[in-house]
C-alpha cells in the first residue's frame, strides 16, 4: 500500500514544485517506486521542472475521465527507472478534479507504487484541496517571510479539518515543515525570520531547510530536479530531507553562517 504525500503551501512561488520534483526523485533514487502528480490543472509546470514536457501525451484529467488509462498517461523518468510523472491537464479547469475521480486514480496507483507525491497548486481552491484530501503526510513548504508563514498556518487548519483522515476520524495527516529560500546571512543581520522563529509560530516538525541557492534556477532552467545536482547546497539539503523523511537522524545543515577567518570577519568580505 502506497503512502500519499502532499506538497503544499497556500502561497505561490515558495518552491512546491521544486520540492515535489526533488523529493520524488530522491525517493525513487532510494529504490522506492514513486509517482509524482501535478494537481495544478490549467497551469501545469511539474513536467517542465522534471524535464519531460515534450513527452506529455495524456494527462491526469484524461485518466479521470476514462479517455486514457494510467499506463498511457504516466511518463517514466529517463534518469531513474522507479520514477513516474502524471502531468496535469493544460486545457481543462480545476473542476475536472472530482473527489471520486482523484480517489480512483490514487487507489489504482497505490496498488503498484510505494510513494505517491502530490504537487499542489497555490491557493485553497479545488486543485489544492484535492491534492490534500487523500494525503497521509504533508510537506508544508514555507519561506521565511510573513505572508508565506501565515498561509502555511492556514493550510495546517485545512489539513486538520478537511481531509479524508479527518472526516473518517483516523490518525491525522503527519505534517512537516520545509523551510526554503533560507539565507543565514540575512537571519544573522536580523533581516529574516530564523528557522526557530518559523518553527515556534507554526509548531511543526522540521523536515529540512533549503538555502537560497543559484542551483535551483539552474536546475529548473535545464529540467533536472535540483536533488540531482549533488555538488550544490540545495541538492544536498534535499537529499537530507528525503533521508529524514525515511527516518534517518541527520543534523540540519545550511542554517548557520559559513565559518570565516578572523580577519575576513573583521573587515568584511
Amino acid at each position, binding site marked *: 500500500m502506497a503512502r500519499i504525500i502532499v506538497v503544499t503551501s497556500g502561497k505561490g512561488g515558495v518552491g512546491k514544485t521544486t520540492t515535489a520534483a526533488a523529493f520524488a526523485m530522491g525517493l525513487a533514487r532510494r529504490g522506492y517506486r514513486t509517482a509524482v502528480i501535478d494537481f495544478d490543472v490549467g497551469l501545469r509546470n511539474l513536467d517542465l521542472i522534471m524535464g519531460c514536457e515534450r513527452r506529455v501525451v495524456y494527462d491526469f484529467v484524461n485518466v479521470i475521465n476514462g479517455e486514457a488509462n494510467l499506463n498511457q498517461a504516466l511518463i517514466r523518468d529517463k534518469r531513474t527507472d522507479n520514477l513516474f510523472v502524471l502531468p496535469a491537464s493544460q486545457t481543462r479547469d480545476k473542476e475536472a478534479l472530482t473527489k471520486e475521480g482523484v480517489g480512483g486514480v490514487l487507489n489504482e496507483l497505490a496498488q503498484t507504487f510505494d510513494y505517491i507525491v502530490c504537487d499542489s497548486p497555490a491557493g485553497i481552491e479545488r486543485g489544492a484541496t484535492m491534492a490534500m484530501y487523500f494525503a497521509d503526510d504533508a510537506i508544508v513548504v514555507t519561506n521565511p517571510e510573513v505572508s508565506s508563514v*501565515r498561509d502555511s498556518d492556514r493550510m495546517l487548519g485545512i489539513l486538520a479539518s478537511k481531509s479524508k483522515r479527518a472526516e473518517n476520524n483516523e490518525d491525522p495527516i503527519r505534517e512537516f515543515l520545509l523551510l526554503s529560500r533560507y539565507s543565514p546571512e540575512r537571519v544573522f*543581520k*536580523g*533581516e529574516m*525570520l530564523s528557522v526557530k*522563529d518559523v518553527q515556534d509560530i*507554526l509548531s511543526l516538525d522540521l523536515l529540512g531547510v533549503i538555502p537560497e541557492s543559484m542551483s535551483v534556477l539552474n536546475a529548473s532552467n535545464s529540467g533536472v530536479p535540483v536533488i540531482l545536482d549533488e555538488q550544490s547546497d540545495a541538492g544536498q539539503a534535499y537529499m537530507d530531507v528525503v533521508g529524514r523523511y525515511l527516518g534517518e537522524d541527520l543534523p540540519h545543515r545550511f542554517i548557520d553562517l559559513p565559518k570565516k577567518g578572523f580577519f575576513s570577519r*573583521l*573587515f*568584511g568580505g
Partner: protein
Amino acid sequence: MGLLDYFRASRSKGSASIARERLQILVAHDRAERDRPSYLPKLQEELIAVISKYVRIDRSKVSVNLERGEKQDILELNIILGEDG
C-alpha cells in the same frame, strides 16, 4: 560582514523581530477565528432579537464567546443593559 556592519546590525533591531511579533499575534488570531463554531454569529443575532422583546439593549454591548478548555467548553454570553433598562 565587517565590523561596521556588525555594529549597524546590533544597533538597529532589524525587521525580522517585527515580523515575528506581527506573525505571533496574527496566527493566534487566525487560529481562534478558525476554531470558532460557525453558528456563533447567528446565535448572537437571535439572542439579541429575543432579549430586545423585553429590554432595550445596545447591540454593540452584546458579546458571545466560546472558550475551549481541556475538559469543557464555556459559552460566555455578556449583555450590558442600559441604565434605564
